[in-house]
């Protein structure tokens, strides 16, 4: 169930941003993507998640093992915390949400409408969603935005537990999570080179 990415090229807004990206993510490991803003971390994650097609290269993984969490958490303000979580659990064919509530200390808030949560609490709810899906490989885009220090620790624990249980995580983040098994991949060298000016072909660039 290793996630293998080979020679991947991705585009944002019709412009090639990254090319030649290759890595493997075996079970129990975490891979942290680094790089300046705009280099294409989000685009890379969305491509791996299958939300957009790659320009070139392949993403290989076992079917139904990936779960993506982006900047938005998909939380419905008028539903309670528990309702939000059980919905995603049901979509992924699971039903138990108590473990996820505990992991992010959401149990006391379970009956509160999600619209009444603070930004950090919402983010915790969004991350708790990862646990209820039971997917093995997490693809996380800036997961610690708007979390306080305790919540970051909570998140690091959850990731560590996930890795210990044989899961894997691909993260785009700038924060040190103190994960033992994390490898860092700097995306700087993979920045796509502009094509020749006269190369007036199918892609217009």
């Amino acid at each position: 169930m290793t996630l293998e990415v080979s020679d991947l090229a991705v585009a944002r807004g019709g412009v090639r941003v990254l090319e030649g990206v290759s890595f493997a993510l075996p079970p129990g490991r975490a891979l942290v993507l680094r790089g300046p803003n705009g280099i294409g971390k989000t685009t890379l994650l969305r491509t791996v998640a299958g939300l957009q097609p790659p320009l070139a290269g392949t993403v290989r993984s076992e079917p139904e093992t990936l779960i993506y969490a982006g900047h938005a958490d998909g939380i419905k303000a008028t539903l309670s915390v528990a309702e939000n979580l059980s919905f995603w659990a049901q979509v992924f064919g699971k039903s138990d949400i108590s473990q996820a509530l505990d992991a992010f200390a959401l149990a006391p808030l379970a009956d509160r409408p999600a619209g009444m949560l603070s930004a950090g609490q919402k983010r915790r709810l969004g991350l708790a969603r990862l646990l209820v899906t039971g997917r093995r490989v997490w693809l996380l885009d800036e997961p610690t935005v708007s979390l306080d220090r305790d919540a970051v620790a909570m998140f690091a624990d959850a990731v560590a537990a996930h890795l210990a249980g044989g899961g894997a995580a691909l993260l785009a983040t700038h924060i040190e999570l103190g994960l033992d098994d994390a490898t860092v991949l700097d995306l700087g060298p993979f920045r796509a080179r502009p094509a020749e000016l006269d190369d007036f072909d199918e892609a217009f660039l």
Partner: protein
Amino acid sequence: MNFNALWQYANPKKFIETTDRVLPAISVLAGLCMVAGLIWGFFFTPEDYRQGSTVKIIYLHVPSALMAINIWLMMLVTSLVWIVRRHHVSALAARAAAPIGMVMTVIALVTGAIWGQPMWGTWWAWDPRLTSFLILFLFYLGYIALWSAIENDDTAADLTAILCLVGSVFALLSRYAVNFWNQGLHQGASLSLDREENVADVFWYPLVVTMAGFVLFFVALVILRTQTEIRARRMRALLARERMG
């Protein structure tokens, strides 16, 4: 016949180079045919014994109506080519053709209304064919609006292609629905295999010339507009690249 050779023109650069060579000839020919056909039709045809001089409107009405429908068909084909083979020129040709099709629809509608006034005593009747053209006009309008509303070129090409496919099915459905809804005043098709029954030769020959003129006019214009779209597309790509640094 080697059809694969045809696909090389899907390369934008090759397309521009090739069409640049034939465009002047086509434009001249289009102008000649249109002027000749319209002058022939306007000055040198007799009056119809029932319709009087209004029969001269046929040289605008029929070719434009014909083009209005066929341009949509051409857009359908190029949309399919884009979806299947993903040649950008194909998608851009559909984009370039849409406004021409809309103008043709407007001409068909306006000349139809002006013709209908003395013949049927009304500018507008909810006759199946008139109604169908109004619906076609709405389809063109929606298609063009969708193209211009989306910033990302590839997304716009994909979405409009699918809209064109779905729209074609619904346009066909509307055609039958409208027929069922109201059997109209319109005469039968002016063009059919047994044309002798509908249009006499004196009217037919200039009509053929005018139709050829309209077709060539469309071809010339769509080539020009496709070139423009290709250049605009390349320009946007270059600007985007510059912004990326």
